[in-house]
């Protein structure tokens, strides 16, 4: 059992589990070191791509739902009325079709954000793993009490006139935010729209189409 208490980024380095895994990890590390030393690639570029795929582009299921909703007003209406049926229409790979999912729509007047204060419930069957900050005590404690301040800290400034609705997933319903379609995306194809939807925007802590940070 982990004896180091908090598992933050200062934990001991990830330890592969068996000799073959260790060999592969070393080889990958050697590869990166050599190519960085020779100036062939920058470490920051690798970091940026990994972050983009892990945090910004995925999860694909949610992004596809949103892109379809933005492109097709009738689908959006069905999604808001009965998310499970709408999800089934797209034949998305979901882990558990029994999960009741509710989609809440962001508008210029209303901004939604999701939390589970009691543990860390998240629409995982659709979106996979939640980010660690979502499960952390500070987020769970603070977002219901001071949502605007929390959003600001996470990079989202809302106009004072926008109403903030926090959804606490205290039972078996799982909530997904339908972010506003970004300005300037009017000509984008549905496939291009998928690229604009990040995991954070589906939780409600970022707008869609946010510029890549790195």
């Amino acid at each position, binding site marked *: 059992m*982990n004896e180091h208490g908090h*598992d933050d980024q200062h934990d001991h380095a990830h330890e592969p589990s068996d000799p073959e895994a260790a060999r592969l990890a070393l080889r990958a590390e050697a590869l990166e070191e050599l190519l960085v030393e020779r100036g062939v690639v920058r470490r920051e570029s690798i970091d940026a791509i990994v*972050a983009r795929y892990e945090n910004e582009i995925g999860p694909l299921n949610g992004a596809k739902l949103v892109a379809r909703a933005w492109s097709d007003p009738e689908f959006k209406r069905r999604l808001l009325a009965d998310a499970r049926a709408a999800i089934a229409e797209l034949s998305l790979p979901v882990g558990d079709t*029994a999960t009741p999912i509710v989609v809440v729509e962001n508008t210029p007047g209303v901004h939604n954000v999701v939390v589970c*204060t009691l543990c860390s419930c998240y629409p995982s069957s659709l979106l996979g793993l939640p980010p660690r900050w979502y499960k952390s005590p500070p987020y769970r404690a603070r977002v219901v*009490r001071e949502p605007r301040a929390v959003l600001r800290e996470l990079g989202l400034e809302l106009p004072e006139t926008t109403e903030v609705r926090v959804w*606490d997933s205290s039972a078996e319903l799982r909530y997904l935010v339908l972010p506003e379609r970004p300005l300037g995306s009017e000509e984008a194809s549905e496939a291009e729209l998928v690229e604009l939807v990040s995991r954070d925007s589906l939780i409600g802590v970022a707008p869609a189409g946010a510029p890549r940070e790195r």
Partner: protein
Amino acid sequence: MPDVHDLGGRPGFGRIEREAREPVFHARWEGRVMGMVYASRRANWLNLDAFRHGIERMDPQRYLAASYYERWLASIERVLPELGALTPGAAPPPLAPYGFEREVGAPARFAVGSTLRARARNPVGHTRLPGYVSGKRGIVVSVRGGYVFPDTHAHGQGEQPQYLYSVRFGARELWGAAADPRASVCVDLFEPYLEAATSGAREVRDE
């Protein structure tokens, strides 16, 4: 510190830390714990509500210091033996219907638009009533149907399905007059947690 897991609205927490990247598991044992939880769920040994309550029963200091998977491990260490999974010759309970939605034998007591008050939190046993809404008034925004009732299910007292309501509480109702007039929290609450309220709740102004 009772009910340390019931974190909504608790003061004293600081910045939300975000890692640039997080591995799925930080160590191999975490993957094994996840595997054990899933396997025991599949074999119907691990009741989800009892599992959550197992986490809630952790020593509060340990809960706050523990990593996510440490909490899972702490729960199954306690709960699986309690449920009989380690008893030689024991059999798991019969499989329940898929999912958590159930028919309730009676009509829902409350309707969309009702003003309700959340009851005091039961200090003993598992519940999904967050402490920060206890005694507060809110408005029903949706009646979600019948679900397995965690308060009984966690303690082996059966599913006893109850209606689930999404109830919206204005920030000023929850946190006082200095709170944001344009913020609210919507919480999913079971019928036994709720009672009718006669006076109006301090609601978010809809414009």
